[in-house]
């Protein structure tokens, strides 16, 4: 690697990096659990339940914790959201359940719902029987494409109903972005794989790894061989900035890099730039910026073309970035990346402002920031190519269009998670998977009764 372009491994000692990547929100102590659960008011028609995409009965599970029944609380959570354990760790609760907690109103702080949820799921009693039972085999067989949160949730519900499920997964491991994308410090200790082991204990689910739709199987085959198909392939493409220099070495897709990070045996082996620019304003931007800092990057700047209030990342996440020493450079629009075949040296931006109509416009003022690495975190894109020629219709956002039952324009083909329109959160993917499973089950049972 060229000296000009300061990208190195081992910026920090292994121990230091490991320390940096410890659990961001460590488990609560028994006393914290007591105090936190006591704060829940068991509200009538509680707003937190409505705010949770999977509709977990939060007051009820908290009361169960408070009465010494953590196992029951875990069952309550998992029956609404089989990935309740990872959701407790990765959900931006400050924009979901905790945002609407009525305790905010006069006390300025919500009940620590995520902490309590994690406590409950972590304390499920493994001596007790598996909390879900599989109904008698229906003889129906459903194909699920993608073992991400959407696919797993869908598969689990279908398996509970007695259907046989085969998951076709392109990667070598299950979990989707829970395994390859979520920030390392949110899901420590290989949690995703442990959680999936628990999910699969229901039985009736087979996963075919390294079996990609569009490559190893076609949608037509799946439709012919199964009673229904659920597509949960997420978004495998990324948006481009469309500026000169975008293809130079040193310009990296943030999600790809995080995937390497998540799978690294030794994080100190990862190449880390000294000066890092992150383009984007969402969760991925924050994650790559914070993780770069934790890996030893000296300067990390998130550059965004609008002002702070327009950022997709929540205040809580921005705070996390600031605490980790990340700079924010606002109102600056990517213009050009400067470098050569050996790497990059700086990136140029045009300052933006809102014109009289409130529309964002670029000004002539140029901002130049020196850098060794530019991470693109400007959003992912759905790639429909694996679905082949008779692919379902797309919606306005160029993802698979579905109806209220999560069925696409192709009969018997359902979809959910990031590959359909939505908030692009794990918890929402689970909700889609749940609802699609319910619709599939209903349809398959109707068919059965018709004979």
């Amino acid at each position, binding site marked *: 690697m060229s000296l000009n372009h300061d990208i190195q491994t081992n910026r920090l000692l292994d121990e230091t990096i490991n320390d940096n990547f410890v659990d961001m929100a460590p488990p609560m102590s028994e006393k914290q659990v007591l105090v936190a659960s006591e704060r829940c008011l068991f509200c009538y028609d509680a707003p937190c339940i409505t705010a949770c995409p999977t509709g977990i009965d939060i007051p009820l599970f908290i009361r169960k914790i408070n009465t010494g029944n953590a196992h*029951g609380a875990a069952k309550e959570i998992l029956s609404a959201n089989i990935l309740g354990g990872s959701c407790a760790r990765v959900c931006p609760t400050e924009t979901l359940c905790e945002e609407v907690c009525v305790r905010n109103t006069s006390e300025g702080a919500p009940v620590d719902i995520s902490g309590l949820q994690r406590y409950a799921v972590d304390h499920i009693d493994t001596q007790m029987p598996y909390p879900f039972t599989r109904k008698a085999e229906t003889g129906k067989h459903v194909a699920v494409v993608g073992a991400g949160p959407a696919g797993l949730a869908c598969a689990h519900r279908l398996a509970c109903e007695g259907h046989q499920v085969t998951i076709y997964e392109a990667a070598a491991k299950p979990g989707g972005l829970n395994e390859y994308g979520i920030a390392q410090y949110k899901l420590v200790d290989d949690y995703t794989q442990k959680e999936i082991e628990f999910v699969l204990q229901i039985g009736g689910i087979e996963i075919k790894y390294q079996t990609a739709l569009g490559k190893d199987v076609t949608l037509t085959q799946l439709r012919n061989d199964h009673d229904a198909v659920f597509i949960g392939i997420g978004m495998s493409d990324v948006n481009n900035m469309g500026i000169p220099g975008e293809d130079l070495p040193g310009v990296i897709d943030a999600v790809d890099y995080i995937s390497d990070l998540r799978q690294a045996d030794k994080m100190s082996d990862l190449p880390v730039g000294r000066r890092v620019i992150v383009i984007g304003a969402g969760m991925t931007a924050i994650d790559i910026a914070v993780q770069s800092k934790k890996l030893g990057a000296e300067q990390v700047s998130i550059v965004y073309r609008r002002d702070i209030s327009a950022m997709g990342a929540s205040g809580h996440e921005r705070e996390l970035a600031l605490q980790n020493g990340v700079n924010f450079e606002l109102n600056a629009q990517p213009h050009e990346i400067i470098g050569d075949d050996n790497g990059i040296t700086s990136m140029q931006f045009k300052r933006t402002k809102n014109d009289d109509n409130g529309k964002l416009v670029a000004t002539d003022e140029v901002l130049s920031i020196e850098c060794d690495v530019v991470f693109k975190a400007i959003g992912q894109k759905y790639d429909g190519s694996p679905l082949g020629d008779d692919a379902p219709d797309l919606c306005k956002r160029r993802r698979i269009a579905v109806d209220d039952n999560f069925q696409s324009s192709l009969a018997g083909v359902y979809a959910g998670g990031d590959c359909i329109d939505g908030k692009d959160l794990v918890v929402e993917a689970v909700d889609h998977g749940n609802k699609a499973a319910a619709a599939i089950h209903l349809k398959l049972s109707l068919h059965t009764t018709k004979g």
Partner: protein
Amino acid sequence: MADLSCEFLGIKSINPFWLASAPPTDKAYNVVRAFEAGWGGVVWKTLGEDPAPINVSSRYGVHYGQNRQVMGFNNIELITDRPLQVNLDEITQVKKDWPDRVIIVSLMVPCEEESWKNILPLVEATGADGIELNFGCPHGMPERGMGAAVGQVPDYIEMVTRWCKQYYSKPVIVKLTPNITDVRMPAQAALRGGADAVSLINTINSITSVNLDTMSPEPSVDGKGTHGGYCGSAVKPIALSMVSEIARDPITAKLPISGIGGVSNWRDAAEFISLGATNVQVCTAAMLYGFKIVTEMCDGLSDWMDKQGHKSINDFAGAAIPNTTDWKHLNMNYNRIAVIDQDNCIECGRCFAACEDTSHQAIKITEVADGTRKFSVIDEECVGCNLCQVTCPEPEAIAMVDVPTDKPHLSWLHHPSNPYRETP
């Protein structure tokens, strides 16, 4: 999943959770909502003779813990303030619509045979599963010669119960007031009168607080207050003790009990049942949290039963009675001491204050070099009273630990220091 269904006096219930006779069971609207929420049964709000009494405004007074947590509250309401026929009609309809749920009709009429003779056939006609005699209301009604006034005189209890058994064919439950000295007396009287069961406790005479600006007890009605009936989790210990007294009394040991008083979650229910109740009734918890609370109660009880390997309520009913005994039978050779877990101690010093000032000076403070304080137990001084553990704000900081002994069981009955000791 454990089976929560149970039978009380031959009446089948889908679970042991009934709503006690009180506002939650005052009318069809509430009762239907309660059944929808999953309650196994209700004891309908107490009916009386027409004209129905009139209630005052400002009815409940509260005793708060820290953070406005309701420890208990009291009320100065009377029995139902709706006409008898309206209640009877609603009971008939709801029972018809909800055949798998229990409806017990609570009754309170004057202490005259005619009154009971008149009302009982009307109640019988509703199809309800049984009656509960409200001898417990501690306010208002006693002044009319009903409720606690009857409940405090065992002979009256026996007499009225006998009338009820005479004029009513289904189970008769006698609800006992706790406002007496020895609850075994009214329970025995109920048994003599032919009662099929007793239920307890009704509310406890109380004044929850005094408004120091107006010098009126709460709840204040136009500047004046009166004692009301106290209920909620604060009364649970009293209720548990009374239930156990009746369960342990050889005379009433076989008399079924419906446990009432401060049941707020599955654990409270399990405790009542372990001490001799066959089912439980709930009022305050429902009034504070709504009917949905029954979901936690049912799930929690069933989860606990699963964990314990109990298949049905009967598996643990009364299980704690053999361990409930008189003081004189307790083992004087048993010893436990406090052990402070330094890792969980937050150094507040409350255990020290409690033990040093009011107990046995068995906790010592050591100033540590780094300026922190270390609290530890002087084993030889500790009598195992539990006070430090009681005051400790941390659930995991102070443990009471058995001190092994090779001495045999020795009770006061046989203790050498007892001048009246029995020789074995």
